[in-house]
């Protein structure tokens, strides 16, 4: 492949400010409408099991799309993505759990839809994302010196170290009084349950929040791909030295891609941790889970946002569908993976997006690959 081909840059359009603002709002509003849309299906079209599966798909999509920013767009190779997710999940869990204890004296769900509890939860997801982004910065820094596989191993080491550290955490404190009387020894390392996992979190995640965060992630990722940073990322993927020589600050862009991906993974971790029937556990940070997300991005196609979404939904749904085969499903899954790599190594969509296949969009503009 050639280095980033000079793609036609859209000319500055002469628009009124109001129009531009409106235009800017349309897309996020679409996202909100999507969130309300899927939420309205919950309980009507989708039963509880479908809902859980749909939420899993949504969270998996977020993780795949975010990982694709590092692995697909920037061409780095991170095998520690689950670590970022777990970090976000634990952080956001601590915020909602201990926040609820302090505010309301109980960790149970507070308020109905859009009640106080849900806003705390939404904020906690963002907090999880922020903490995770900080970790992303730290993990991204070695990319100053390391390339390719070496960086991959460092990220893998990060996930494994995190897993062991999470196992050493203290047990969860159950009440406000307990929290007030807790000694330092019980608070450091943080009381998030150790090997059992962090359980007892209020279960706030529903299709609305998954839908909302997912659509924001996707909008962000698609716009990122077409932005200046995104183009620098793609340039680095295609040829690091060439992009360096044309003035791309390679290190900064790489670290940024890590920070962004980690932030989104952290938010997804927050959603993951607050689902019914889940307690987030140390092994969620391990490499096996990271592999799952890597597989999704690769199957989808490198740098393709919609491709990773499709792959994420297929790979999350496939095991459910194969559930009746029980012991054979991992075998089928592995064989499919190998077959896919042999037959269509560029992934489902290559580096294109789904709309690039629809003729009326293709006509309208050149696409950044």
């Amino acid at each position: 492949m050639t280095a980033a081909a000079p793609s036609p840059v859209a000319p500055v359009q002469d628009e009124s400010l109001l129009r531009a603002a409106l235009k800017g709002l349309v897309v996020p509003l679409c996202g909100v409408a999507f969130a309300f849309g899927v939420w309205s299906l919950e309980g009507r079209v989708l039963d509880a099991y479908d809902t859980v599966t749909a939420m899993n798909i949504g969270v998996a999509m977020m993780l795949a799309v975010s990982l694709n920013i590092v692995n697909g767009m920037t061409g780095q190779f991170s095998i520690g993505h689950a670590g970022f997710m777990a970090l976000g999940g634990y952080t956001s869990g601590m915020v909602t759990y201990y926040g609820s204890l302090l505010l309301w004296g109980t960790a149970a769900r507070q308020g109905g839809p859009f009640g106080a509890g849900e806003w705390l939860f939404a904020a906690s997801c963002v907090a999880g994302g922020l903490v995770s982004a900080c970790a992303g910065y730290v993990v991204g820094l070695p990319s100053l010196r390391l390339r390719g596989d070496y960086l991959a191993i460092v990220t893998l080491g990060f996930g494994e170290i995190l897993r062991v550290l999470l196992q050493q955490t203290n047990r969860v404190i159950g009440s406000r009084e307990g929290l007030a009387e807790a000694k330092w020894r019980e608070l450091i390392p943080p009381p998030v349950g150790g090997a059992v996992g962090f359980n007892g979190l209020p279960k706030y995640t529903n299709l609305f929040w998954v839908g909302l965060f997912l659509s924001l992630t996707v909008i962000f990722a698609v716009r990122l791909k077409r932005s200046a940073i995104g183009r620098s990322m793609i340039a680095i993927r295609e040829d690091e030295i060439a992009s360096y020589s044309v003035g791309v600050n390679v290190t900064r862009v790489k670290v940024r891609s890590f920070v962004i991906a980690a932030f989104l993974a952290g938010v997804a971790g927050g959603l993951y941790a607050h689902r019914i029937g889940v307690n987030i556990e140390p092994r969620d940070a391990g490499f096996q889970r990271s592999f799952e997300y890597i597989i999704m991005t690769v199957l989808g196609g490198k740098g393709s946002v919609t491709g990773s979404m499709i792959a994420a939904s297929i790979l999350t749904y496939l095991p459910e569908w194969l559930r009746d085969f029980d012991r054979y499903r991992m075998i089928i899954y592995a064989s499919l993976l190998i077959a896919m790599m042999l037959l269509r190594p560029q992934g489902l969509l290559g580096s294109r997006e789904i709309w690039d296949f629809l003729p009326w969009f293709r006509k309208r503009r050149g696409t950044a690959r």
Partner: protein
Amino acid sequence: MADFVQTLETALAVGSLYALIALGYTMVYGILKFINFAHGDVVVLGAWISYTVAQWCLKRLAPADGPPLWLGPVVLACAMTVCGVLGFLIERLAYKPLRRAPRLNVLITAIGVSLLLQNVGQLDAVFGSSPVSMPALLPNPALVRMSFGGPGSSEVVIGLVDATIFVTAGLLMLALETIVYRTRLGAAMRAVSFNAETAALMGINANRIISFTFVTGSVLAAAAGFLYAMKYPGLNQPAHTIWVLLGLKAFVSAVIGGIGNVRGALLGGFVIAFVEQFGAFYISSNYRDVYVFALLIIILLIRPTGILGTPYREKV
């Protein structure tokens, strides 16, 4: 003092196992520049084949006074053959068609192969999902008992099994060293590793060299699996996470030593084993894996290509 020497002894034994496995990673990486994640599973297969063959032989022979001494080498040879063939097949079927694909794709395929091996191994018809007990093909008397201080104080024990592991691993590594640095085949391997296309132009059959590399790596892995089963007779089922972790640690050894470098793998294996054992003994056993991975990160930051790796310079 006794404890120190004992830990040292364990570290040497474990280190030779890591080094044996690391060799497979490092050879494949040296030539094809990708992490063969399925290598760890070949080790598992080696261990389980050893178990199956040993069990079958013992059932057939039903010796009255323990397994005969010749059984060990026979079992080892069987495991090496099966794993060698498997290594060849894996390369031919899964990796060869991807020779020109991006490295990431080959890596994914390797993960796929690894998942496949684990889950097929776990089927009841193959190895099953329960842990098994490897029959003791070697007696394990204490070869050396060193006592520091007066009677009653703890002493250092070096068993026959540990000694065998150390010696076998050492011999295999010497053999490999000879092949790579002293024979024409080894020269061809190094040439392919240096630049596959140029090597092909010089009349080297690169595909054959790559197959050979895979087979050699798998044979060493089988040996490691066999020795592992000798040292730790309780064998975990093939899909156990711990096997992946074993593979990862061996891989980390290869990276720390300088991947692509045969001597580096040896050095890395011992470094990792020392850090792990001494860390667990003197600091805390809770953080065993942390020591390994933290050391990895530190070494990579100081020397990005490992201790013995050659720093690479990029040309435009």
